[in-house]
């Protein structure tokens, strides 16, 4: 004991509580021998927590019911239209007839979203790398805020901006639409990538750094590969979001023909959201049926992509956690 005191001055205060310690907390002291049934206070708390639990469960069920209802109502009207012809053929020459399909719109939406991804993914990943690996804390915070603000900009506003930038004085174009979709995707890709990069364990970075390998090579060889799963998931989710965006395309890529075209720089690209908008607002029941079919196709695509991406992500997490 004398040894201890001589080596650590000030450490004794912790060892000896003041004498009145016992009296101070006497009323709160536990009697360990009391029967192990819940006290009245504990019972009250339990009732409250059960009430909260049921409210929360009800809210959760409501959300699930909402989704189920939307899927059901779209499926019940759209599924009957679905056929090989519907997925491949173009709309009929005379809109007021049955049959035909949305083939060119499916191809067009894939093209628009594909180009948007090609633009947004590298920029998003590089921005995320900058934020996590190179930027000062302040710069990283600032960029993160900018991306969050960009995410919050209404897509119709972005559409007007792109219209001024690319379309005004020229014609509508698929590229203009893709460009707007890319702006919508960028913050999603960047933030998802950033979050996954932050999850890469420090031990891994240390391992690479301690081997005398340059920062960029360590990023490319170790950090990026272990974050790749999350980055791809984030990109795919962003892509699914962009596939359903309609406001920008109504402004930037709406006046399209009934056939597939890849002249993205000079012509509007047919796409599903605008087709749904046009067909459902015209006074034509045959068009309405095709609109429901198109809505069902879009919904299916987005659901499948979302579920697939999340499953992939969960697998990646498990792999990383090992």
């Amino acid at each position, binding site marked *: 004991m004398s*040894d201890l005191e001589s080596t*650590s*001055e000030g450490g004794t205060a912790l060892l000896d509580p003041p004498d009145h310690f016992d009296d101070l907390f006497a009323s709160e002291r536990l009697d360990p021998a009391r029967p192990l049934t819940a006290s009245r206070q504990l019972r009250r708390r339990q009732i409250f927590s059960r009430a909260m639990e049921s409210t929360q469960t009800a809210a959760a069920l409501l959300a699930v019911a909402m989704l189920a209802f939307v899927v059901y109502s779209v499926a019940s009207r759209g599924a009957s239209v679905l056929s090989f012809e519907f997925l491949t053929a173009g709309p009929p020459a005379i809109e007021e007839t049955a049959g035909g399909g949305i083939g060119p719109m499916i191809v067009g939406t894939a093209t628009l979203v594909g180009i948007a991804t090609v633009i947004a993914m590298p920029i998003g990943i590089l921005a995320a790398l900058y934020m996590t690996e190179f930027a000062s804390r302040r710069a990283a915070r600032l960029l993160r805020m900018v991306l969050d603000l960009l995410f919050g900009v209404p897509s119709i506003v972005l559409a007007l901006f792109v219209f001024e930038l690319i379309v005004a004085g020229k014609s509508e174009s698929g590229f203009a639409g893709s460009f707007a979709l890319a702006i919508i995707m960028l913050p999603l890709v960047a933030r998802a990538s950033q979050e996954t990069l932050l999850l890469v364990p420090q031990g891994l970075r240390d391992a690479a750094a301690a*081997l*005398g390998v340059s920062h960029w090579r360590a990023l490319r060889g170790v950090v990026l590969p272990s974050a790749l799963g999350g980055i791809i998931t984030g990109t795919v989710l962003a892509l699914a979001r962009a596939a359903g965006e309609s406001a920008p395309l109504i402004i930037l890529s709406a006046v399209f023909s009934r056939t597939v075209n890849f002249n993205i720089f000079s012509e509007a690209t047919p796409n599903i959201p605008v087709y749904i908008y046009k067909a459902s607002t015209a006074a034509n029941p045959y068009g309405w049926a095709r609109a429901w079919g198109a809505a069902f196709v879009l919904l299916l695509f987005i659901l499948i992509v979302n579920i697939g991406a999340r499953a992939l992500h969960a697998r990646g997490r498990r792999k990383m956690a*090992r």
Partner: protein
Amino acid sequence: MSTEVTDAPSTPRQRVRIQTGEREDLGAREPANGTAPALAGAGQAKPAARETIFDVRDISVSYGASTAIAGVSLKVPRHLITALIGPSGCGKSTFLRCLNRMNDTVPGFGLTGQILYHGNDLYAPRVDPVEVRRRIGMVFQRPNPLPKSIYDNVAWAPRNLGMKANLDERVERALRGAALWEEVKDRLKQSAFGLSGGQQQRLCIARAIAIEPDVLLLDEPASALDPIATASIEELMLNLKHRFTIVIVTHNMQQAARIADRTAFFSLEVSAGKRTGALVEYDETSTIFTRPKDPRTGDYVTGRFG
């Protein structure tokens, strides 16, 4: 408080030289262009005075406003094992990470004083930390294999450093050097995460020696391992010291006593409510454990403190 150790066997003449502050023939035996020494030089007869690899001169390290270690000076001689011991939080890891600039990226890190490595200031403005770490390897407390195959864990750094010739041979030699080859030679393509903790740690050592560094820094490499894995790592250290200069942090007194040639005892000094790590004593391991000059060292190594 700082302590310097003369090189054994010490002669009065050497003592005088050190007291006058003269450095021991540094530069003369500096490896050409700073590359790692050839492996062939290993088993030579013990030179009378060992070359100093690290000459740490009165360094203090702070993280933000708090000082982690203050006023540490010591010399690390070539091809010996130097152990760093002391209570938790006294700055052993901090000190070790200063030796290969692993602290550079820690926010708020600040260093005063000088660390000479083969006579060159490690923290001089034009020194590239990546080049420093290429020569001074490090093994961490928790095994941290890369998410790659066993083979690629060892081959990754040589590949990136342009040492692509005879890569298979290099990998095998590194794994043999880390006493792991026999256990993994049939599963080189499998994930490194499938190895046991002790095997993973030896893989990390293999990875570090594959690029033939000059110095190996180990931060409690055996703390998460069972006695058998620990014993194999200790044996490994004793073999590796013929090729590398080793600095090892350990919480295990017996381990330090078993493997280290020199031992540095760090302690926490409390003054004005601030706790700062300081070097208390640095000497031959046998001296530290049997005839320490400072009573605090004696208390610590005999288990009466910390």
